[in-house]
């Protein structure tokens, strides 16, 4: 795949663009008061994020818990109405659409959730879980066709068609995640948000699900937004990677550049914190241990929000928010020091 250009707010050819996110903000109000609720503050879960997603690519979104990666994914699906910013899906700004206008679009955009235990209704059998979106979107004409669709979906994700009568508790974690994948595929989407799809699985099962997602992408020409905190998995599956910290994007580039030549000090620290399963390599690696904790998104620090933990921060970082700029072609970063 040759998808070098990745500029937010670009006006160049939009043929290959699927999604453009521009200045996305999502604030959650914090209310106080027992009877009369009064807004006292905002949690700035996502605070001005811009990026594009090309057709057919996998965009990785990484960061620690609370950095806003899941919120970003859910905003793109319009599961939350963003506070500000634009989300263009094939050129149409979906943040301006009414719910009824969004409905046909929802067929094109699906999500796979993290928790394979919590995201399946325990009272529905596998067939009904997978079939529900088909019925809702009226994609079938007859009962026979419905059955056929459900069974072919089950075998596509590597489950046996006869398992459609089983209930979620009868499946293992990996199998449940396959049901979640089949449910997302049921309406034949173009774009899937994979929200930590393998984090809850055992390592030997993780690889099975990752391979499944890659096969489906090849076969169905899917576009993924792959949200994860495991940087090794993201390196494996993504074409480009966006790193987030405390509601802001700090670095975005293609996967090999990000891992071999990271520019932002947070990206560097994050990469060096991931242990590599090889003691020989480990003993030679340089480690950057960040001090302190991630500040609260309720009250983020002024200036660059990473300056409180940054090993190379200078005075300007404490007062001026660094600009999100294209340092090298296709390599975006927000830092005063690079």
């Amino acid at each position, binding site marked *: 795949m040759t998808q070098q250009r990745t500029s937010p707010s670009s006006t160049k050819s939009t043929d290959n663009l699927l999604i453009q996110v521009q200045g996305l903000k999502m604030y959650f109000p914090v209310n106080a008061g027992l009877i009369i609720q009064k807004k006292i503050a905002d949690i700035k879960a996502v605070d001005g994020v811009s990026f594009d997603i090309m057709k057919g690519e996998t965009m990785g979104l990484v960061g*620690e*818990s609370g950095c806003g990666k899941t919120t970003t994914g859910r905003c793109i699906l319009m599961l939350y109405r963003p506070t500000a910013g634009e989300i263009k899906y094939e050129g149409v700004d979906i943040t301006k659409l009414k719910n009824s206008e969004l409905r046909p679009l929802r067929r094109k955009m699906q999500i796979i959730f993290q928790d394979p235990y919590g995201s399946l209704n325990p009272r529905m059998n596998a067939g009904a879980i997978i079939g529900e979106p088909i019925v809702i979107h009226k994609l079938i004409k007859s009962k026979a066709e419905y059955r056929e669709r459900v069974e072919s979906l089950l075998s596509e994700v590597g489950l046996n068609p006869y398992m459609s009568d089983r209930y979620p508790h009868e499946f*293992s974690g*990996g199998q449940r995640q396959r049901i979640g994948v089949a449910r997302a595929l049921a309406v034949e989407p173009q774009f899937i948000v994979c929200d930590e799809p393998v984090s809850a699985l*055992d*390592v*030997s*099962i*993780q*690889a*099975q699900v*990752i*391979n499944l997602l*890659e096969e489906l992408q090849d076969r169905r020409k899917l576009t993924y937004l792959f949200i994860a*905190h495991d*940087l*090794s*998995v993201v*390196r*494996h*599956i993504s074409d480009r990677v966006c790193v987030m910290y405390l509601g802001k994007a700090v670095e975005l580039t293609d*996967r*090999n550049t990000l*891992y071999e030549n990271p520019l932002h000090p947070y990206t560097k*620290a*994050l*990469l*060096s*914190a*991931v*242990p*590599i*399963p*090889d*003691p*020989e*390599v*480990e003993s030679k690696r340089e*480690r950057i*241990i*960040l*001090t302190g*904790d*991630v500040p609260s998104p309720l009250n983020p620090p002024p200036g660059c929000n990473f300056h409180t933990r940054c090993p190379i921060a200078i005075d300007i970082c404490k007062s001026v928010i660094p600009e999100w700029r294209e340092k090298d072609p296709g390599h975006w970063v927000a830092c005063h020091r690079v």
Partner: protein
Amino acid sequence: MPPLLEVKDLKTYFYTQSGVVKAVDGVSFSLEDGEILGLVGESGSGKSVSALSIMRLVSDPPGKIISGEVKFMGEDLLKLNKDEMRSIRGHKISMIFQEPMTSLNPVLTIGKQLTEAIELHLKVDKQAARDRAAKLLESVGISDSNRRLDDFPHQFSGGMRQRVMIAMGMSCNPKLIIADEPTTALDVTIQAQVLEVLKSMVANTNTAVIVITHNLGVVARYADRVNVMYAGKIIETAKATELYANPRHPYTIGLLKSVPRLDEPKKDKLVPIEGQPPDLTNLPAGCSFRSRCPYAFEKCAVETPPLLQVGDNHFSACWADVRKAVPAKK
């Protein structure tokens, strides 16, 4: 000199409605002073139950330690009575649990929880215990420690709570710390902080550590020796450098191949281990990994392989020689 800890043929079974779960089924290993041992395996492989059995914390019923020996400093822990065992727990052997959110008592201050064990085991007065607690907090990197002793757990972040747990584990100068998934609930940058703290503290005091984890990277970075567990048994054990350079059990090889590596560009595809972990209530005869194993042959279905020596201090429970055998294509 005998080793600090010597576990021999430990078996812990759970008697449940759906049958007998052989959670730990004949585990033997030993540990020297100051050694860091990694216990690796997937969920249900018996690594946590092994640790709980050493501490005699398996709830009975449904669990029962049915046989084996746990020799700690020459004494068999399984033969001690309740009071003797209590004087060892938290004193000579301490444990750090996975969930820093739930393993601290939310209605007691950090100071109260930290000093409890110090007063009990080291038999010092309140003020001395508090001084020691403050020093411990300082040493795990929590500043302004004297004031923070009066805080409650909810006033600490996840990483800080786990550091409090480490301080608590170290409070009575134990000889052995068992850390059960100490960083699984934490973000990577915090995980690195916490593990560095743990490593420097045990290095200073020559404390032995058993780290239980499913993260092969954490083990590679911190452990001296590694035991790989599968379905209640140790299936391979070696020095960490040896195990990663020259894995000999098909399960270990499969695990190492199935994780993508941060320092390597993308290969074509990950190689997963096919199939599911076995049902522990109904283990097949012979080797319990054989249904997922590409090297399996007739003998594997008949006889359970014992740990066989395959190198210097390197043991693997497998009949096949993976260096010569050709894996079957499935």
